[in-house]
């Protein structure tokens, strides 16, 4: 901008422009600061001066109860929420890709599998996840099947995998369908079979394209591990509620909320970064 070479002096008009710019940025800064102070200060004052604030503070933000409940809450959180999410994730991806690819096939022999894939996505995407979790955790053990676990953690995790598999399958399908047909045509010209074209040409591009929505679903999954509490898996949120119900204090809910944020916020930032990077690559140089 200011390429001030030797012997060059800004014209009076340029000086005037700079002056105006400086004034404007000073004014913007001032307005932004005042606005921030007024809005955030107003919200804080509204909170802190509300008639019930002391009760809410002792009910939701008691340091004593936070400390007392922390061991149980963190134990449940690590043992079930974090572990559950890490175990479920690879299976969800696998199911998602398989179902999406199956739905994209055209051969007649694949017809039964296509029907199964469609019914699967319709059913598991259409049911509330909590309902599926409850049915898996309570109805399946009731059947008394030999060799099927009655452990509600594994049963509930299976329910989560099936529900999220259906969501992720649709995400992948959207990605696959977004790849231009010319890509498949080119692969065909190169002598690749349909399967090879899918594996080497379509899927890699589709996966890159659906990264942000995929990560979005993963963040959602992290939070939904709390649904396992409904089938008496003593995960973080349930542990927090249990302490709360016994001691009549909601602070552990705040504690587990902070734990969830510690897990999800970094992943959210990572999602943003992936999205921006994909953008940069796809539209290299174009602004």
């Amino acid at each position, binding site marked *: 901008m200011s390429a001030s070479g030797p012997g060059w002096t800004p014209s009076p008009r340029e000086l005037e422009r700079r002056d105006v710019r400086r004034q404007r940025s000073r004014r913007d800064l001032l307005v932004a600061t005042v606005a921030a102070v007024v809005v955030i200060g107003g*919200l804080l004052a509204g909170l802190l001066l509300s008639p019930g604030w002391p009760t809410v503070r002792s009910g939701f933000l008691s340091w004593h109860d936070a400390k007392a409940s922390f061991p149980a809450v963190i134990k449940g959180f690590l043992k079930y929420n974090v572990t559950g999410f890490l175990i479920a994730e690879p299976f969800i991806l696998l199911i998602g890709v398989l179902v999406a690819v199956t739905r994209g096939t055209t051969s007649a022999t694949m017809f039964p599998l296509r029907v199964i894939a469609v019914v699967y996505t319709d059913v598991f995407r259409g049911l509330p996840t909590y309902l599926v979790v409850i049915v898996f955790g309570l109805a399946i053990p009731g059947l*008394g099947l030999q060799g099927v676990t009655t452990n509600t953690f594994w049963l509930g995790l299976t329910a989560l995998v099936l529900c999220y598999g259906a969501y992720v399958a649709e995400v992948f399908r959207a990605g696959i369908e977004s790849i231009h047909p010319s890509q498949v045509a080119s692969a065909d010209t190169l002598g690749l079979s349909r399967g090879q074209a899918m594996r080497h040409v379509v899927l890699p591009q589709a996966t890159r394209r659906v990264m942000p929505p995929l990560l979005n679903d993963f963040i959602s999954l992290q939070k939904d591990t709390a649904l396992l509490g409904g089938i008496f898996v003593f995960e973080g949120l*349930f542990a927090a509620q249990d302490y709360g119900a016994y001691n009549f204090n909601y602070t552990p809910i705040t504690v587990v909320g902070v734990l969830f944020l510690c897990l999800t916020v970094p992943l959210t930032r990572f999602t943003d970064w992936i999205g921006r990077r994909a953008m940069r690559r796809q539209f290299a140089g174009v602004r």
Partner: protein
Amino acid sequence: MRTPRKAAVLAPLMLLALGCAPQASSTTATDTTPTTGSQTAAQCAQGHTMSSGKLTIGTDSPAYDPWFRHNDPTNGQGYESAVAYAVAKQLGFAPSAVTWTKVPFNSSYAPGPKHFDFDINQISITPARAKVVDFSDGYYSAAQAIIAVKGSPAASATSLADLKQYKIGAQTGTTSLTAIRDQIQPSSDAVVFKNTNDAKTALANGQVDAIVADLPTAFYLVAAEIDHGTIVGQFPSAGAPEQFGMLFAKHNPLVPCVNQALATLKSDGSLAQFEKKWLSDTVNVPVLK
């Protein structure tokens, strides 16, 4: 041009912030604590209920037997329903002036105004809880009992130590759960259920070896709900027996009136009569060592 527009966007936000700001609390300041003394419970309660002329009582839904019957607190059947109506009568409210409202246990102790005069829901009185809410005097002394399926290994336990090796569960937030954790201290963590129904299902499914509940609930479960269920025994009472109390908002002026009503019902034998009518005879249950 840009800045005024920003200000226009922010202005409603600021108004919103101010709109949420303090409003005078109308309920707490005006009430004065009534003096009991020579007053009857009915005089005491005059004008101190949530809506005048009506007594609003809360309980969870479903309302389980034997505390209520047919999940309907309004029929006066079941121990807690009977006690609630007897107390209401003492306070000067005819059955028609009693309204019931559904209060999930988890929300009964939430900060903020309560939507009931009192909540009756097998709530154990503990010092930690009494810091947050007010309790009436106890209207029932509860013992904890352990339930298993007949013929299962856990059913033959005769002491708390025998039970250590089993997977045992109870409802969340209850003293039953604390009894497992503190008195049995099983080798695998206590299983926690959202409600009695889940506990029952898990026992039937073999997902737990035994469950703990208060004795009257245990009797009901074994008699009516669990196939081949049996009461293994009751817990030895550690110190003072646990009491169920009615739950009130902190500093509710109705508390002494209800206590007066309960004292009357205790001394005239009504409570004992309700117990006899609605709760099974609990004498023959062996105490676990």
